[in-house]
């Protein structure tokens, strides 16, 4: 089987979705740790220094572009799978089993993913695009002149309550997507073993599914409440 055929099979496509999904999972944890610096009471010195470093380190910029490519592949292949899965059942059942045979989360992946996509587009436009191509205020932090992303973030969340809501909804989407998605990706790679399933389930539900999304959602909420 040629590579082009391999990645066009149902399992091949799932592997692309799973690999990009786990790559994004590894990113969100780093992203959260970095962003929590927004909550320090240092007028943005730590966060801006970190953001400035991230924006100017070439290796990190390479990974950052890789992330965007990963989102596009993830979205595009998942969309294809979703449509071909719908097509596989042209006549629907009159009665469906609901949660009796599968978890609710496992059936909402495409919807939660779509919420995430809307969130990501607005998120990237507001902060990533603005940081790299916009005209943001500058400031002196730790003796160095740099973009003041910190105050940009604070202005965004303290002046636009709807944006705070959007972030909370986006993180609910992330939570529900990863409660199923994290462990599902391991199964896709064939990693199903009694000795590790408990750990994978725990990490997927509690760390990636609950802790990380709550951590992210708290940032805009706390910023809004502080002012």
């Amino acid at each position, binding site marked *: 089987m040629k590579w082009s055929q391999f990645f066009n099979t*149902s399992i091949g496509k799932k592997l692309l979705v799973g690999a990009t999904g786990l790559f994004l999972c590894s990113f969100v944890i780093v992203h959260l740790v970095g962003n929590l610096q927004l909550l320090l009471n240092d007028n943005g010195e730590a966060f801006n220094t970190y953001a400035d470093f991230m924006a100017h380190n070439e290796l990190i910029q390479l990974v950052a572009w890789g992330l965007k490519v990963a989102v596009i592949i993830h979205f595009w292949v998942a969309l294809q799978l979703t449509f071909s899965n719908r097509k596989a059942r042209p006549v629907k059942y009159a009665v*469906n089993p609901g949660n009796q045979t599968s978890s609710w989360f496992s059936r909402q992946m495409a919807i939660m993913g779509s919420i995430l996509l809307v969130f990501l587009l607005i998120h990237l436009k507001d902060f990533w695009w603005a940081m790299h191509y916009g005209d943001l205020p500058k400031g002196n932090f730790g003796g160095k002149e740099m973009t003041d992303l910190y105050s940009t973030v604070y202005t965004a969340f303290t002046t636009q309550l709807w944006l705070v809501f959007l972030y909370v909804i986006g993180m609910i989407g992330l939570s529900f997507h990863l409660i199923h998605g994290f462990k599902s990706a391991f199964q896709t790679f064939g990693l199903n073993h009694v000795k590790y399933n408990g750990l994978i389930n725990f990490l997927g539900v509690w760390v990636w599914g609950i802790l990380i999304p709550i951590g992210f959602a708290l940032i805009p909420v706390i910023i809004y409440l502080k002012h």
Partner: protein
Amino acid sequence: MVHYNMNLTLKVWRQKNAEAKGNFENYQVSEISSEMSFLEMFDVLNERLINEGKEPIAFDHDCREGICGMCSMHINGRAHGPWEGTTTCQLHMRAFKDGDTITVEPWRAGAFPVIKDLTVHRAAFDRIMEAGGFVSVNTGNAQDANNIPVAKDIADEAFAAAACIGCGACVAACKNSSAMLFVSAKVSQLALLPQGQPEKKSRVLNMLAQMDKEGFGSCTNTGACEAECPKEISLTNIARLNREFISAGFTYEK
């Protein structure tokens, strides 16, 4: 278990042939014994329909003992009805109570077209088997049994996978009409054993390619198949299928 009789309303899918549109028809059945099987209840109804000069309801069945996999019926939203690890022929009417309304639909999947009423065509499964679900056997004298050592736990695992009866409940239960549980059972029963090694790589690639070609959906790991499988085939088989597919895809030269 106390015996009781019940009166039921059946909402059954009627469809003349593959091209016809089809619709639900309501039937009242009375004095149904809690000791009857679900198919016997249909026999009672069909006998009445025949006596009334009406077309009986077409449904598939053969062994009526849970081993042939023919008795495909989607009952109140569940493949083979509400009981776990059972086929429709092994479902008893004591699963229901007097006055219940029971909706019965055929398996719904593009790859399993309806032939008539509740019978569907599962030839897609046969074509998947033809694509690779076999082993090469040398001519000559038969070997002694037990000549090839197989660890007991591996033999048990292969046997558990081989319990698949090809009923299609996994496809019927899956929101994507995916046949992954069936294919994984058929790949696993051979991949686990020494006898299955010669075609190990080509088997999994060809069977999966055929599965896709038949128009089954892909797996999203919801687990509905495992929950509905009458032979309780485990999801670990799907993980094994994925592993087999990945290793064959990365290393098979053709």
